[in-house]
């Protein structure tokens, strides 16, 4: 690293976007807090509206903030070092997302290895199980909970398998798009990026179908169906939210590509979106293995 690189590190002047972002998160927190508090009661509070206002404000903030960043980037204010800051920031953000999923995978592991078998009397819990839940048999998927809620298990074939194929393919097409960008082949870039987005949207569509199937009379697999339903919906649900976010990122990239943004050397935003996409893909593979198959 030479001194010259350091001289050009761009320190932005004052910005009003962060405080708007902080207010937006405040609105989301109190809106969601109020909304959730009233879920199980008759009264309907202000929560929903405040929550929506917060989400709208956060979207406005992201739009404005990123516009500033893009303008600065196009104006050539960013150095190689700045690019590194962005890259490292994005990598550690993805790492923090990994840890968020780790909490839920950890919970799934604990439920399967300890909690459910212990309720069935394993370890030194034979007498406890006999006294508290004499009719309960430990099994995974947990189709009948100790208090008698019954449900059915989501198989791994059919929609989940199809979704696995879709998402894995999209990761490959995302890579092709990235390679095309590096080779400066804009038309290939547009095609592969477009296919990636379509595959992502298809995944989301089938995921909705799968949820509808789960909530049908036939399956009766609800969020409230004991720890099997809990872990199924929370893990796939948070993954689905991340796929949605990833898809939005890719769509934004698509429009920026149409506008002629990015060069073969300088395309951090594209890289970040594609890293994020690979990350949701890896999470899905883990989900497919630990939630659906095993």
């Amino acid at each position, binding site marked *: 690293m030479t001194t010259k690189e350091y001289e050009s590190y761009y*320190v932005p002047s004052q910005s009003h976007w*962060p*405080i708007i972002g902080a207010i937006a998160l405040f609105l989301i927190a*109190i809106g969601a807090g109020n909304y959730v508090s009233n879920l199980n009661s008759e009264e309907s509070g202000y929560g929903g509206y405040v929550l929506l206002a917060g989400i709208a404000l956060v979207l406005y903030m992201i739009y404005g903030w990123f516009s500033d960043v893009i303008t600065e980037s196009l104006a050539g204010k960013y150095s190689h070092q700045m690019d590194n800051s962005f890259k490292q920031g994005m990598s550690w953000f993805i790492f923090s997302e990994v*840890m968020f999923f780790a*909490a839920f995978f950890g919970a799934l592991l604990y439920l399967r290895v300890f909690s459910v078998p212990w309720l069935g009397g394993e370890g030194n819990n034979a007498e406890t199980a006999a006294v508290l839940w004499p009719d309960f048999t430990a099994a995974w998927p947990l189709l009948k909970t100790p208090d008698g809620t019954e449900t059915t298990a989501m198989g791994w074939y059919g929609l989940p398998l199809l979704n696995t194929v879709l998402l894995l393919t999209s990761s490959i097409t995302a890579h092709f798009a990235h390679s095309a960008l590096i080779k400066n082949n804009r038309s290939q870039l547009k095609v592969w990026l477009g296919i990636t987005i379509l595959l992502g949207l298809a995944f989301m569509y089938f995921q909705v179908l799968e949820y509808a199937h789960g909530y049908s009379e036939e399956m009766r697999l609800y969020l*409230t169906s004991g720890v099997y339903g809990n872990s199924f919906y929370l893990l796939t649900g948070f993954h689905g939210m991340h796929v949605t976010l990833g898809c939005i990122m890719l769509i934004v990239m698509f429009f920026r590509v149409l506008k002629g943004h990015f060069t073969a050397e300088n395309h951090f935003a594209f890289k970040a979106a594609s890293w994020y996409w690979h990350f949701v893909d890896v999470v899905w593979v883990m989900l497919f293995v630990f939630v659906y198959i095993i």
Partner: protein
Amino acid sequence: MTTDTLENTEHHEEHHAQPSGIKRWLYTTNHKDIGTLYLWFSFIMLLVGGGLAMIIRAELFQPGLQIVEPDFFNQLTTTHGLIMVFGAIMPAFTGFANWMIPMMIGAPDMALPRMNNWSFWILPFAFSILIGSFFMESGAPNFGWTFYAPLSTTYSNGSTAFFVFAVHIMGISSIMGAINVIVTIMNMRAPGMTYMKMPLFVWTFFITAYLLIAVMPVLAGVVTMVLTDTYFGTSFFNAAGGGDPVMFQHIFWFFGHPEVYIMILPAFGIVSTIIPAFARKKLFGYSSMVYATASIALLSFIVWAHHMFTTGMPLFGELFFMYCTMLIAVPTGVKVFNWVATMWRGSMSFEIPMLFSIAFVILFTIGGFSGLMLALTPVDFQYHDTYFVVAHFHYVLVTGSLFSIFAGTYYWLPKWTGHMYNQTLAQWHFWCSIISVNLLFFPMHFLGLAGMPRRIPDYALQFADFNKWVSIGGFAFGLSQLLFLAVVIKCIRSGEKAADKPWDGAEGLEWTVASPAPYHTFSTPPAIKDE
């Protein structure tokens, strides 16, 4: 590390003039402004959390219920803990990180200045939600700062959703702050400043930031499960649906134990900066300090269940977590011995930062030893959930973390404000604090050993004598902090002009710039010479 002073003071044209008024603070991207905001916010939270603690101590002044209802008492202990952990100690350290890291590594600012502003401004909103819940119909959270299920799920009051979302946005703030620290340190060091040349202060914040991005998301996960269990009918922590309330404790403490080190590793960094300055010797065993810090951080991920010895874990689990926990005493011991060895035969002087640092070394070690006692599974069955635990973690967090924050403030205050502070008043602050804090927390050991449980508004008559002294100590300690406020305000407004390097033994790039530090420092990086 030495540097050429003159070339750093050149003003760079690309830099903007220092803005003024409220917009300066709301829109700022300047690491020094943001550091100042963090530090003031943390001090206000310290006073709020301290005020809650004084109501607790007033209630516990004598047995029986005098001032508050038991439910409100629970709200007090809960919010006191949450405010002190997330509102006072953590933001104070982030404030130090913001102020000092760019100056110590020769960077023009933090790597991502706008995100830095966002990280800070989330906090006042998050804490206004938390404190605002006192004024809700149901009252504030009442399940302890550890929010164990089912207290926080089945038996929680109406503010739980607000608590959950407040914790979520605090977590977002911490993660962004930590990413900023990591990227700044990895990417913005002046040429020639290799990792092993960084001040130890920078190292400890670097490692702390990794702990933060690793465990804050886990906290987000566990509060989410609390939310769905409470409001959406899931049963993660409910045996009737196949879950387990003990699972809550596992996930919480997987976050919670590294969190404990998030609050002490930066303290190690501050003290390791101050002791060499006033012993006028280089820090003894710099590289062993780095490795010890890293070892403590790594070990913190495999010791969480020592908070849960009495939950009926399998014997193997109890033994594993006991031995791993005791292993932490080794790197911690390395640190304490290194501090002592740094002082050994140094030409010591006892300015205020040094007084607080020496107090830190002694009192933190007491807290460490009581931690070692608690790590022993069989004896923990006796100590668990007693005032012994309260004494332990207040020794490490108050006389540990908080004292290091005082030490650091007194050390860098001349650099921040350009003035020397009133030494007499600061001496009063130190001596009042050190006497009252021991009166406050030391008898808690005896109370705990005698069996007084924590988190109760009433107690048996046999505990009354010690509790009276503890309460007196508590009020004295709380009021002593007003002296600190007075010192800081006086120092900002007036005082003898501080030299660029007011401490003759101090080392580091921050002393090569003027006092007060110019709004922008190191627009061009300084040259780091080999010694």
